């Protein structure tokens, strides 16, 4: 059954497809989402591929103090990011369930992915 209760819509969709720590994609993508929210835009995030690792509980900073993404995700509510979508196939392919995640998410099935993309005026895919 679909978890999407209203038609996806918004100003800005930021797609997160990279895992934290191995690169800066996730951090710099989240920065863009936070700026969008701070500017009053209606912002959605879609985690897909290795991006779903970003929500795994139990992450920490790297040994040189690299920030990772957990702290940023914990701030999302404060920044008024309106929707946090997660590609269910990507979760399952990595052996993850909702219980492993830091935050409640809206699960998106494969047929719904294109609906999420179509519902946003701007898409940035990181």
């Amino acid at each position, binding site marked *: 059954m679909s978890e999407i209760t209203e038609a996806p819509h918004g100003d800005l969709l930021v797609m997160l*497809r990279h895992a934290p720590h191995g690169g800066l994609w996730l951090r710099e993508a989240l920065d863009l989402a936070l700026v969008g929210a701070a500017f009053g835009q209606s912002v959605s995030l879609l985690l*897909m591929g290795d991006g779903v690792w970003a929500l795994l509980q139990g992450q920490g900073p790297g040994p040189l103090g690299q920030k990772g993404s957990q702290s940023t995700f914990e701030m999302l509510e404060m920044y008024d990011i309106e929707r946090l979508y997660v*590609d269910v*196939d990507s979760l399952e392919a990595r052996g993850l369930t909702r219980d492993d995640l830091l935050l409640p998410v809206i699960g998106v099935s*494969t047929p719904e992915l*294109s609906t999420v*993309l*179509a519902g946003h005026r*701007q*898409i940035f895919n990181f």
Partner: protein
Amino acid sequence: MLLHLLNRAPSSSSVHQDVLRAMREEDGLMLIEDGVFGAVSAQVQHFPGLEGRLFALREDLESRGLAGRCDARVIIVDMDGFVALTEDAQRTVSWF
């Protein structure tokens, strides 16, 4: 209609699977840079069901020696044709 850009070969990355799952029936897929390795006949099966809306950039095929190896199911466009595709699509999404 969205135009999706893909610059990874299906032999080196699984991102093409995510692109395909996110595409609608009216969307187009443009292979550029290393994405054009997916246009050769032995690889094009990674892009099923895209007849008429799977494109590859001519200059990236030619620079890689693939001009004669591009599968007939792939529509070859030059840079001018690439721009024309972005005129028709309201938005583009780049996958890497």
